[in-house]
């Protein structure tokens, strides 16, 4: 840790004081310097000799804050097919995006202009490729511009974040990514940084964006100044890390360079998060230029921290790392990045283990959870493919489904880490399903690959669907990426040399500490010379078991009384105390926690639900929230919902101004209009309707004046076989069916006037011509005396025969 001296690093750039996410010079204001950028600067890392290029709509190369670091060799114009990436200027400044991103990376420091870039001495270029038709060729060209010269490509764009798009790189762009990874930076691999997506308001999920969801890109999300989820943020399991970005109106924004040589603090969304991380990676590459593309991802995983970021799903994976679907492994830490980079030893080679495709078709029934498992030895029998320690995990699926947005997919690793590969997307009504779509998760990073993997699929219809059309999982394949050896502590046999037990003095009474120390000093033991358990630390062991280590690589579990053993990760019900390398028991009801207190739970045991506001585990959820069974947490109902069941948008009671449409709460519309879910606006009903559920004339729910509701239509008069009737509480009349077999009935509906063929009118009712044709006189007397023909229920009972018989 460096002691920061704000006076040592003062810049004369006029907006420097507004860069709250980099420094805390004003002690009276709120401080948000957890990204530790200044500490990295103080170590002398500012991005020198590192080349970053922004793939976007151009870069204003003569912007006073960029001109000094601008690098023409890191630039190209794919749209104009020349070397100049200058943006096309128009009245609306449409092409400001690339220039804004570039400033965040490498705006010059101390030039009395605008801001200070995170890597203010890095070289910056622009690849202009968004100002024209974007095709696979355009993307492939952009991703492959001078891969031996450009170190980091930063992209803050992608397929539409409208909550209904599933799209990713085409074959050429995919190949460009692969080529960049294999050959870029003279074989070390190009670094591709990607913004996770802005579709939060549309319920989008970034696993449906094949760029952020790729193992080759570093997917970056955003958090607000106060550590909240920004309204625009998309979640997914492939997000690796996070930076600050703009949030609610009362939270501070990000400042950067702008088109026409200006500076701006406009709303930034997730777009500046990618260049911020590109800048931080530039600092790390300056510290150690030999880092390869996977080293960078490992260092990000290792150094990013959850700090105060608020997410309902923070959990510790099987390798002891806190990870969430909102923020990946957390906020980037530039200082920790450069410190790790400096001493980093290249991770072992990447192994890829492709599991056998499971092609057994399985129907996905609505409202039912289906699970399918695969047991893997992670290619243990192929040395070049064996994956022991995981990095990325990909699940390739082919699914047919009548409404893709109703699907939810989870993957559960052998260590029990549950990654949500796909969440429900309200607006995704496509019936195209997924064809060989690769969902990726980083949540199992560092875990052991071998064992049983489970895929969970849940189809929760958001609207009425044809029950006869079901979804079907047609094929799925598990693809494991990782290493055969431990990435940070390659397996080695330790010899017991040091004789100091790894017992934290804080855990024992002083007398016991003294006893143990003296006991150890004088005790003579036969020296053990065999291999130690792989969880044993550098002090060696007294035997091969994990309970015989003298210290631990990861964590020790247990206590002096019951005995201790080394584990790679703390089991459920315990928290990993990183400082003391101990597993500490959580409070009752907590499954995972960040402290031992009742209000320090991060996930709950079965039968308990986490209340995110208080971090407590309770047996029931408060009003406005529902208990999510699989996550075991209380989640808030959708903002339009007053009460919901099982899912945030499975509403049962709506807020004022909203009404139920299926299980959704949609805004109330003016009379004569309805809420069109596809267009997300009120649309006109057919002229005959007073209210409706669609534009068609057969989609009325209430009719205009003087019309009658019949079979969802509003008609001026009822047709034959029906009569007009009032319904209390309804503004219109409805057509009711006359009694059975009646062709025309009175306006009251009580008496029939004309019967269908084969029936005869009898006392206002229709009786069949053939019923009871053999009643004798005596029988008819009985019928008459009992007045059966006056009672509708018995009118078919020989009445006609008896009448004919007099």
């Amino acid at each position, binding site marked *: 840790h460096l002691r920061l001296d704000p006076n040592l690093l003062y810049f004369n750039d006029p907006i420097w004081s507004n860069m709250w996410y980099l420094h805390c010079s004003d002690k009276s204001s709120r401080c948000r310097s957890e990204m530790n950028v200044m500490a990295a600067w103080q170590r002398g890392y500012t991005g020198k000799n590192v080349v970053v290029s922004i793939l976007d709509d151009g870069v204003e190369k003569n912007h006073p804050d960029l001109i000094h670091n601008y690098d023409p060799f890191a630039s190209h114009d794919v749209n104009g097919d020349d070397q100049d990436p200058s943006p096309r200027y128009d009245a609306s400044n449409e092409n400001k995006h690339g220039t804004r991103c570039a400033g965040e990376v490498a705006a010059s420091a101390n030039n009395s202009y605008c801001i200070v870039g995170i890597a203010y001495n890095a070289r910056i270029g622009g690849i202009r490729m968004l100002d024209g038709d974007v*095709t696979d060729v355009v993307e492939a060209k952009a991703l492959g511009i001078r891969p031996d010269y450009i170190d980091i490509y930063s992209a803050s764009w992608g*397929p539409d974040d409208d909550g209904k798009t599933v799209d990713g790189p085409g074959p050429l762009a995919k190949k460009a990514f692969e080529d960049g990874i294999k050959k870029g930076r003279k074989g070390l691999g190009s670094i591709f940084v990607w913004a996770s997506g802005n579709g939060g308001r549309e319920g989008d999920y970034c696993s449906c964006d094949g760029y952020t969801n790729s193992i080759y890109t570093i997917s970056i999300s955003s958090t607000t100044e106060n550590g909240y989820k920004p309204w625009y943020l998309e979640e997914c399991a492939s997000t690796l890390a996070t930076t600050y970005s703009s949030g609610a109106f009362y939270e501070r924004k990000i400042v950067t360079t702008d088109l026409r040589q200006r500076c701006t603090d406009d709303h930034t969304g997730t777009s500046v998060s990618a260049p911020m991380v590109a800048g931080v990676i530039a600092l790390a590459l300056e510290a150690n230029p030999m880092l390869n593309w996977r080293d960078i991802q490992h260092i990000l995983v290792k150094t990013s921290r959850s700090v105060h970021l608020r997410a309902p799903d923070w959990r510790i994976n099987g390798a002891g790392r806190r990870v969430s679907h909102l923020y990946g492994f957390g906020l980037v830490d530039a200082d920790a990045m450069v410190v790790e980079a400096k001493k980093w030893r290249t991770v072992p080679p990447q192994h890829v283990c492709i599991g056998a495709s499971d092609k057994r078709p399985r129907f996905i029934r609505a409202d039912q959870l289906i699970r399918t498992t695969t047991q893997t030895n992670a290619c243990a029998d192929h040395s070049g493919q064996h994956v022991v320690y995981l990095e990325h995990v990909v699940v390739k699926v082919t699914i047919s489904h009548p409404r893709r947005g109703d699907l939810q997919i989870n993957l559960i690793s052998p260590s029990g880490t549950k990654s949500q590969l796909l969440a429900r997307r309200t607006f995704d009504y496509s019936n195209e399903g997924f064809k060989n779509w690769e969902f990726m998760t980083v949540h199992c990073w560092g875990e052991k690959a071998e064992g049983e993997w489970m895929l969970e699929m849940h189809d929760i219809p958001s609207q009425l669907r044809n029950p006869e059309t079901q979804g079907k999982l047609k094929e799925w394949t598990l693809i494991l990426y990782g290493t055969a050896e431990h990435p940070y502590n390659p397996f080695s046999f330790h010899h017991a040399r040091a004789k100091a037990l790894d017992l934290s003095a804080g855990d024992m009474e002083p007398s016991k500490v003294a006893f143990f120390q003296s006991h150890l000093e004088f005790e003579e033991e036969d020296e053990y010379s065999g291999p130690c358990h792989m969880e044993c630390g550098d002090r060696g062991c007294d035997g091969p078991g994990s309970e015989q280590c003298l210290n631990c690589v990861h964590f020790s579990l247990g206590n002096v009384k019951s005995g201790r053993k080394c584990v790679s990760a703390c089991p459920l019900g315990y928290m990993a105390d990183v400082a003391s390398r101990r597993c500490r028991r959580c409070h009752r009801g907590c499954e995972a926690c960040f402290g031992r207190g009742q209000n320090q739970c991060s996930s709950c045991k079965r039968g308990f639900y986490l209340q995110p506001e208080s971090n407590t585990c309770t047996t029931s959820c408060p009003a406005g929230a529902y208990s999510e069974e699989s996550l075991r947490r209380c989640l808030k109902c959708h903002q339009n919902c007053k009460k919901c069941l099982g899912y945030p948008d499975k509403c049962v009671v709506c807020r004022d101004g909203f009404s139920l449409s299926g299980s959704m709460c949609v805004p109330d519309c003016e009379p004569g209009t309805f809420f069109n879910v596809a267009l997300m606006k009120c649309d006109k009903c057919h002229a005959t309707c007073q209210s409706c559920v669609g534009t068609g004339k057969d989609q009325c729910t209430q009719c205009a004046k003087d019309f009658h509701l019949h079979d969802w239509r509003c008609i001026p008069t009822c047709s034959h076989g029906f009569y007009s009737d009032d319904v209390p509480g309804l503004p219109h009349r409805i057509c009711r069916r006359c009694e059975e077999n009646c062709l025309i009935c009175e306006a009251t509906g009580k008496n029939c006037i004309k019967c269908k063929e084969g029936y005869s009118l009898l006392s206002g009712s229709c009786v069949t011509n053939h019923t009871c044709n053999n009643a004798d006189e005596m029988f008819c007397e009985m019928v008459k005396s009992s007045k059966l023909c006056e009672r509708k229920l018995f009118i078919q009972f020989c009445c006609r025969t008896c009448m004919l018989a007099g």
Partner: protein
Amino acid sequence: PVPRTVYSNHWAVRVPGGPERAAQLAAKYGYLNMGQIGNLENYYHFYHSKTIKRSTYSSPGRHNFLQMDPDVDWVQQQLIKKRVKR
């Protein structure tokens, strides 16, 4: 409404025979060879000025001849992708 596929008048072509062969093929079938696609070896960018710039229909016809040429491994008419700045 489901977004419609929009075809452009650009093609990606894989020609293992090298840049000269790619240039010959482009000339033979009436394309303008825009050169190699970035760093992708054997992949070339062809442009056809007499095809509609943006169309909701693919353009087979004459382009099938290019596809059928024995020196061509793979051809793909380029689709215009909706890409959004974030």
